[in-house]
Every structure is written in C-alpha cells, then in structure tokens.
C-alpha cells in the first residue's frame, strides 16, 4: 500500500481523536492525501468541487424535508397522536415502541429507498416519544439508525439500481424481488435484539396501561394517520417521487399542527426552521466531506489496492468469501455506499461468480454489508443523521448499537448461508 493511504488514514484518525468536527477531519485528510498527486491550487479547487458535488443531488432534498416535517410533527402533536395510536397495538410487549420504530423505519425506508430519509423522517418524532416512554435517547436513536437501512434491501431501492448498472447485466426487477425477504429478516433480527435489550433495561414498562380509550385515541389519530397515507400512497401511486413527498409532508404537517391542532404558533416557526437548517447543515457537511474523501480514495485507486492486498492471501472459496465480506465491512466504514458499489462490483463479481454464487445473491450480500457500514463510525451517513436528529454523540450511541450490530451481523450470516432467501422470489417470476 502506498503513502497516500497512510497519510489519509493516519491524519484522519489523529484529527478524529482530537475531537475536530468529523466533517472537517474527513475533508482535511482527503486534502492532505490529494496534495501528493496534484499541485496546491488544483487540490484545493478539486476538494471544493467534490464537496459541492456531494450535496448537489435532488434526492438529498429528502433530508431537509423530512427533518423539517419531523420537527413539525414532534412539536405540533402529530407525533404524539400517532404514537398513542401505535401503543394501542404494541404497548404491552417488551420494547413495544422499539417495534413501532423498527416497523416505521422499515416501511418508510422501503418506500422512500433512502436510509437517511427514513432516519430523519421517523427518528425526528419517534425518538422524543420513546424518551417520554422511558427509553434512553441513545437506544432509541440506535434502533432508528439500524432499522432505517433495511429500506436499502426492500424495493424500490436506488442502491440496487446502482448495483445492477455496475454489474452490467443483473435485472433490476430480479434484484427488487430478491431484496424483500433479506430486508424483512434484518428487521426481524433487529426486533428480537431490541426486545431483549429493552427487557434487560426495563424500557417501556413504566407506561400506564389505558385500554378504555381505544376509540378516542384512534379518532384523535385520524388526521395524523392521513399524513402517513398521503406520503406513502402518493409515492406508491406515482403522484410524486419520494423526494417530492418530503415537501408535501412538510406542508401537510405545517397546516395540521398550526391550523388544526394549533399546537405550533407562528412565532414558534422560526425556531423550528432554524433547528431544521442546523441539523440539515450538519448532515450535509458530513455528506459533502465524505463524498470528497470517497473521490480521493477512488482517484488514488485505494480500494483496488486494498482488495488486491487482501485477496492475494488464499484461493479457498470460503476464505475468499470471508475476505470479501470483511473488506466490504471495513472499507464500507470509510467509503460512501454508491462509490463502494461502483468500485467493488467489477472487482468482486467475477471472483464470486467463479465460486458459484449468483450475482443476485451477491448483490444482496454486498448491499447488506455496506448497510452495516452506514451505521458504523468513523464514516457512516445514517449514523451521522441519527446522532444529529437524536441529539446524541457518537461515543454515547456506540454501546446501545453493539447488540444491534450483532443482530445485523447474524442476519448477514443467515442471508449468506441460505441463498434461497434471495433467489427464491425472483425464481418464482422466472427472472
């Protein structure tokens, strides 16, 4: 491995340990590394361009929209009514609200196809509600972060489209069908892990059991439930794209909380807007910097040289598959998901196809690996969004994340060992 990798990683680790803002640490380490290849002015200009290009994407608008609507829902009583309604159904189970959180993130992630959108949309109002119910803020955030990634596997999913293009031939329709069961398995594993964790910590047991108000609570929740129907129904029936649904959600929650419930006053709006701008900007700086760092990694061919280094060890199929998974997990911690798929698919796919693994199955394995990477420090966009939304820090969220990582890891093992889970549904439709 060459000097550019060493500089990039060592400067990044040093800046991180020093508690430099992570976005700044990521951008600076990419900058130092790129200085080895280009002159000063070209390096600075390229870094600035890559940072701006990182946030120059229409799909990213889902983040500010769902952050804003999440805050409006939280402050305007929509969230509370939705949660009261949900508690009617799951309130008595251990970790009932964690289940609500996981199912909402899975559903929203599935439909929007974006894990960060799911984290900002659901986390924004569920985390405070879970906290009111006795859950720790960190655990609630950890649940949101991990559950949001299931939407990468359950269709529609933009990242599976990227994989299809990078693999040069795998059908998107087949990949979409292949993702259903693995996505649900991840959600199930997360639910089991959170139930155990919640039981151990005694979360959610303090909430009083009110059974007499089922009808009233359902009735109260109707206008709020309509928001869910509007967003999900609008996307599914093709009235708007998931990104556009964000803007509609903002408008609807604004009208509902300001004019109908009247729990948000006009003078509160500037505060809500400012909070949303701050959270959005924190996330965007991280995305901008990560995308610039990903660019430097690609430019210096670092992922390729790391894979060559690791794959040179053995020809044993199991060892090779293990190495590939480790590499995806490891490099997935630094690299954005899209460049990771674009760079690794052409390197790994021929190797695993020679081992007899179907490209559909491998696509699911790869996306799940990289999804775990989205929730791991030091670089993980969903983790970053979660920490900003849940107002917690990365060091505090790690311990409740550990059992959830384990759950995702077990799901990964199941999905690797049982290829039928991925290939059965596409096979049914002879894809």
């Amino acid at each position, binding site marked *: 491995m060459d000097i550019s990798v060493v500089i990039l990683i060592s400067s990044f680790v040093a800046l991180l340990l020093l508690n430099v*803002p992570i976005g700044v*640490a990521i951008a600076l380490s990419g900058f130092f590394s790129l200085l080895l290849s280009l002159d000063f002015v070209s390096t*600075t200009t390229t870094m600035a361009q890559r940072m701006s290009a990182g946030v120059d994407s229409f799909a990213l608008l889902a983040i500010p929209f769902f952050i804003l609507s999440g805050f409006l829902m939280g402050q305007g009583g929509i969230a509370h009514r939705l949660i009261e309604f949900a508690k009617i159904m799951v309130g008595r189970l251990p970790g009932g609200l964690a289940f609500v959180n996981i199912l909402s993130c899975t559903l929203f992630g599935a439909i929007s196809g974006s894990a960060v959108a799911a984290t900002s949309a659901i986390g924004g109002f569920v985390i405070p509600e879970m906290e009111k119910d006795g859950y720790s803020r960190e655990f609630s955030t950890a649940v949101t972060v991990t559950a949001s990634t299931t939407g990468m596997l359950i269709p529609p999913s933009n990242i599976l489209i990227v994989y299809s293009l990078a693999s040069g031939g795998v059908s998107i329709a087949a990949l979409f069908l292949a993702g259903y069961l693995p996505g649900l398995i991840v959600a199930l594993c997360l639910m089991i892990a959170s139930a155990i964790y919640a039981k151990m910590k005694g979360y959610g047991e303090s909430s009083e059991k009110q059974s007499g108000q089922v009808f009233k609570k359902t009735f109260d929740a109707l206008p709020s439930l309509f928001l869910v129907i509007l967003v999900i129904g609008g996307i599914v029936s093709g009235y708007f794209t998931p*990104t556009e649904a964000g*803007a509609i959600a903002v408008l609807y929650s604004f009208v509902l909380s300001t004019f109908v419930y009247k729990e948000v006053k006009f003078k509160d709006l500037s505060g809500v807007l*400012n909070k949303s701008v701050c959270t959005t900007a924190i996330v965007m700086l*991280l995305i901008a910097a990560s995308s610039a760092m990903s660019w430097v990694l690609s430019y210096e061919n670092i992922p390729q040289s790391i894979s060559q280094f690791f794959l040179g060890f053995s020809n044993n199929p199991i060892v090779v598959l293990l190495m590939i998974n480790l590499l995806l997990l490891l490099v997935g911690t630094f690299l954005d998901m899209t460049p990771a798929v674009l760079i690794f698919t052409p390197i790994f796919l021929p190797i695993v196809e020679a081992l007899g693994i179907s490209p559909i199955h491998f696509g699911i394995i790869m996306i799940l690996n990289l999804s775990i990477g989205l929730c791991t420090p030091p670089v993980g966009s969903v983790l970053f969004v979660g920490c900003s939304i849940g107002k917690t820090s990365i060091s505090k969220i790690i311990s409740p994340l550990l059992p959830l990582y384990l759950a995702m890891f077990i799901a990964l093992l199941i999905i690797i060992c049982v290829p039928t889970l991925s290939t059965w549904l596409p096979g049914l439709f002879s894809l």
Partner: protein
Amino acid sequence: MSLSKVCNRVDYFLEVFTSALMVALVLNVTWQVVTRFFTNDPSSFTEELARFFLIWIAFLGSAHAFRKGAHLGLDYFVEKFSPAAQAKIVKTILLFVVLFSVCILIVGGSCLAYLAWELDQKSASLGLSISIVYLAIPISGLLFLLFSAESFKNYSNN
C-alpha cells in the same frame, strides 16, 4: 463594535437567510409537483433551483451550526484530559478548522467560482451563472474563519 457583536449580527442574518431558503425549498418542490399534476406544462427549472438552494443551505448553514457548536465530533478521548489541557486542545481544533476554511473553502471555493465566472459557465436549465452557486463555498469559509476567531478569543480570555 466588538468581535462578538459583529458575530451576533452576522449570525442573525445567516439564520434569517437560511431559514428563508428552507421555506423557498419547500415551496419550490411543491410547485414542481403541482405543475406536473395539474398542468400539461410541468415546470422545468424547479429541480435545478432546488439543488442550488440545497448547496447554499449546506455551506452557509454549516457555518451557523459551527458557531452553535453543533457539529459532530468524537469527544470520547478528549473528555479524559484535564480542563487546562482541554482548553489547549480546543485551540488546536480551531487551528484545523481555520486550515480547512482557508485551504478548501476559501482558496478552493474562490478558484472554483472564479473558473466558472471566467469561463461563463451557465446552468443547464435556468441559464444561471454557476459561479453564483459556487460562491456559497468561499462565503462559508469566511464565516467559519470569523466564528473561529471569536471562539479563539473567548478561549484566550478565560
């Protein structure tokens, strides 16, 4: 006028400006849906405009969030040091923030905006000058620099 007063004013303006952009963003994308849904002449500029608003919110908002101390860091190790050592660490952090804002945001961003201006690069749909979009980067760099100076001064006085 003292440094902190200047910063307060600049920051207040920043807050109002980015909030206004946020509202504009929501209205802009709603307009996109409305024109596509209700007319046969869907608006063709909204997608581009929305992306440009987002770039401005991202860079200017970052500076605002920096002043609030809201950016994420890894505080795990630093917390273990004595308060005196921590004050020194904070100053070192500020130096790196200055390095970031000067090299990448101010120099890099200005070069980028200048290149787009010199070569008269126009956006594909609105025909807007791309240099205006890129101007958000050096402006954000200047704001980061200003707020770093304020923070440095506060830590030196204590």
